[in-house]
């Protein structure tokens, strides 16, 4: 009872108001065809919200100093008014959990609830999330937290050693597989593939061709195929790691995998939620005062950030454009692509299911949109960022390419384990799949140091620095850079 009283005193609405609005919003949600998980809302204050942000919205999470660091940072920014807090936070779980800020006004809560259903629907239906096992999210994180705490409290292990492993694991955690809906081949399947590949391709004129020489594949090489899951590879191939160390690596890896789909679909996801909260709120026929505030808030969230990139804005523009082009294709488009066999809405739901940011932008970011969003490309010169291309006839494609390189996991360098016995001395050999962007050396050095710590032997990374093939090898507490001739 007491709680209800406080609620009444501090908010201009009650939980019952929210429930009423929620039922109206849900009706609209179902009407437009969204298909969310069951939703749970928790009302929290700003301190709670800060904590949830730090721990990715999870009710329980293993401890690590980096979360303390980001809490301090967020709190400072918030206290000094540099940045506000998000209106909501949704986590990908079944049932989905969302946090609503207590101090927000009713109009904002209504907007947020609608927005949350957009995310929720996206989590449930986009293909990238299909491997995240949403029904076990909360339990998985809880189990991770309990295990890590258990190791911290174990007198034979303790905080310092757990932290050493976690520091190293965090540095490498995003070096993992990017597309989780592609099944990872088992060791046997990889072996089979290798055998298959060693056979010459079928040749209908084999009788008159010289028989190609048979090259026996190297079955002793580990890994057989380049391996992207760095932490898992180290876990499985360094026999000196203790069980608890392996478990910590697993924990960090699993959490990274859980978040990869969210990294992969930031623009789509935010755009989708914004697109639908707008539609839903417009259909609700809000009373005038609420409607005015909704428009103000909506505009605040959706306005472009000059110099930066507002994923809400970019995402929503693309979604709206898809709907428009499929509902009312211009004569030109009809000529080029033939008659549309789908309505705008059908197309939207198809795209929501099968794309992620990179493919979404590649397929649906048109020249017209690049211009409308006023996109430009910048490069770093000295200490400044300088505009290098603007959206004109020659440059819009390149800007689009650059944008695609800067979304989702394309922002993480692709680095794979090629050999775990390089030079026959158990050196871990990695290759950076260079795409024109060099690694930041200081960060590469420190990260290799962590990998060296986990691997226990020399580690070597092949990359390109200033267009020269270089080998960064880390051993004996120092980094050596060799330029390959």
């Amino acid at each position, binding site marked *: 009872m007491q709680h209800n009283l406080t609620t009444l005193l501090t908010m201009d609405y009650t*939980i019952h108001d929210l429930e009423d609005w929620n039922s109206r919003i*849900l009706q609209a949600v179902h009407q437009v065809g969204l298909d969310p998980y069951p939703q749970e809302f928790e009302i929290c204050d700003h301190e709670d919200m800060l904590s949830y942000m730090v721990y990715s919205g999870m009710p329980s999470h293993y401890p690590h100093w980096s979360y303390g660091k980001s809490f301090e940072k967020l709190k400072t920014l918030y206290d000094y008014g540099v940045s506000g807090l998000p209106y909501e936070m949704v986590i990908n779980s079944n049932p989905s959990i969302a946090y609503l800020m207590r101090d927000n006004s009713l109009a904002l809560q209504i907007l947020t609830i609608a927005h949350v259903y957009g995310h929720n629907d996206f989590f449930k239906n986009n293909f990238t999330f299909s491997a995240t096992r949403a029904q076990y999210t909360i339990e998985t994180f809880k189990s991770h937290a309990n295990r890590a705490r258990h190791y911290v409290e174990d007198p034979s292990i303790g*905080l310092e050693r757990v932290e050493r492993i976690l520091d190293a694991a965090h540095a490498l955690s995003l*070096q993992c597989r990017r597309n989780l809906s592609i099944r990872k081949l088992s060791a046997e399947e990889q072996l089979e593939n290798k055998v298959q590949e060693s056979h010459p391709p079928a040749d209908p004129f084999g009788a008159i061709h010289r028989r190609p020489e048979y090259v026996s594949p190297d079955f002793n090489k580990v890994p057989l195929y380049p391996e992207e899951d760095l932490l898992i590879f180290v876990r499985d191939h360094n026999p000196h790691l203790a069980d608890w160390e392996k478990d910590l690596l697993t924990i960090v890896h699993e959490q990274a995998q859980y978040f990869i789909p969210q990294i992969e679909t930031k623009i789509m996801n935010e755009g989708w939620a914004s697109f639908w909260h707008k539609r839903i709120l417009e259909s609700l026929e809000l009373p005038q005062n609420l409607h005015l505030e909704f428009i103000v808030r909506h505009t605040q969230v959706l306005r472009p950030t*000059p110099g930066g990139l507002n994923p809400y804005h970019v995402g929503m523009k693309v979604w709206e454009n898809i709907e428009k082009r499929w509902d009312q294709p211009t004569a030109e488009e009809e000529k080029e692509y033939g008659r549309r066999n789908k309505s705008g809405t059908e197309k939207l739901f198809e795209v929501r299911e099968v794309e992620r940011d990179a493919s979404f932008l590649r397929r649906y970011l048109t020249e017209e949109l690049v211009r409308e969003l*006023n996109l430009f490309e910048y490069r770093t010169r000295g200490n400044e960022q300088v*505009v290098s291309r603007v959206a004109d006839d020659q440059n819009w494609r390149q800007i689009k390419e650059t944008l695609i390189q800067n979304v989702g996991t394309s*922002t993480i*360098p692709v680095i794979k384990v090629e050999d775990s016995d390089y030079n026959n001395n158990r050196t871990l050999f990695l290759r950076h799949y260079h795409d024109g962007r060099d690694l930041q050396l200081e960060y590469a050095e420190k990260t290799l140091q962590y990998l060296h710590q986990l691997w226990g032997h020399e580690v070597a990374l092949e990359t390109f620095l200033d267009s020269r093939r270089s080998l960064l090898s880390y051993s004996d507490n120092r980094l050596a850079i060799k330029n390959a001739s």
Partner: protein
Amino acid sequence: MRGQREDPTRMDRTSYTIFRPYNPSSGQRSDRSAGDRLRHRQKVREAIRNNIADIIAEESIIGKDNNRIIKVPIRGVKEYRFVYGDNAPGVGQGGDQEPQPGQVVGQGDQSKQPGQAGDRPGIDYYETDVSLDEIIDLMFEDLELPDLERKRLRQLEVEKQFRQKGFRRKGIRVRLDKKRTARSRLKRKKASQRKEVPAGLSKRFPFHRDDLRYHHSVNDLRRESNAVVLCIMDTSGSMDTMKKYLARSFFFILYQFICSRYQNVEIVFIAHHTEAQEVTEEDFFHKGESGGTFVSSGYNKALEIINQRYHPALWNVYVFHCSDGDNFDSDNPAALKAATELAQSSNLFGYGEIKPLGAGYYGSSLIQLFSQIEAANFQTIQIHRKEDIWTSFKTFLAKDRAREDAA
């Protein structure tokens, strides 16, 4: 609204939406990041300790207010990953104006741009707020005035913390004395039992708040030796802004060190050019002068003060002198003589010669001249850069330890 809520189709759909109301106590109870913040704070302190030379080199420290909060750049609490470097282009949105090729849109730290937070290395600085007091504590944790001898008429108070003194019923957790607590519980148990309770029937007899016993400790003050520190600074015309700044920084650290570690150390400030005079702390740190340089004048003034007020038989005397070494040649013999005398009447005589890099090589050096002094408690050092200040300071104070090690 009521009517709508009872609409059956609605009930069907809202039934699985749960609203959990705000629970004010849960926020206060579960400050879940407290542990992680503490750990982070510890790492920050570690990082500060490792970077103290750099922090001292920051101009902003030189000042007086110990409560002042200073921004300290820290390396070492960064989270490293593989990230792209400078040659990776980015994409932004233009504002109201059309962006033009060549237009500058941002400075340095790319990670501040929305939408790409965290995927690029930020600028190297991670700043944290630390009070000057806190830094001084960290800096001087393991430093002491060297060769402190016990002299008569001791005045100097050294605070030796935490002498145990008895037990209390109230206290903080860490000081709980488990043995005594258990014993007082037993006492209470015995006292409450009127007759023997048959075995097997005994009830639980939990600890009561009154059973708790805590160690009590008091801060312990001990009188130690008398000490005086004489700071001599060259304020002649050849001491340009940079040199003066280096000298003042050095003395400022010395001053902070003495104030923070010893409560009753006397400090004497002497400024000299061709003449020397005793000045106030304020003037010493803030006023500039000009003129030629007679180092001997400063030394003689120091000797005079020592003889008048701080006789070496009663006082531990520490003399520190900072100069650019640009002495008039005619004064050199006198300076040598005075320096020798000073070394004899003091526990430690440190001479810091300030030669900023790139300041030209024309200047003469007193270090060569002073190399003739053979006293073991005489120490010379060169300060080239801001970064040297801390190391030279430590060298001066670590002197006796080094000598003991050698011996």
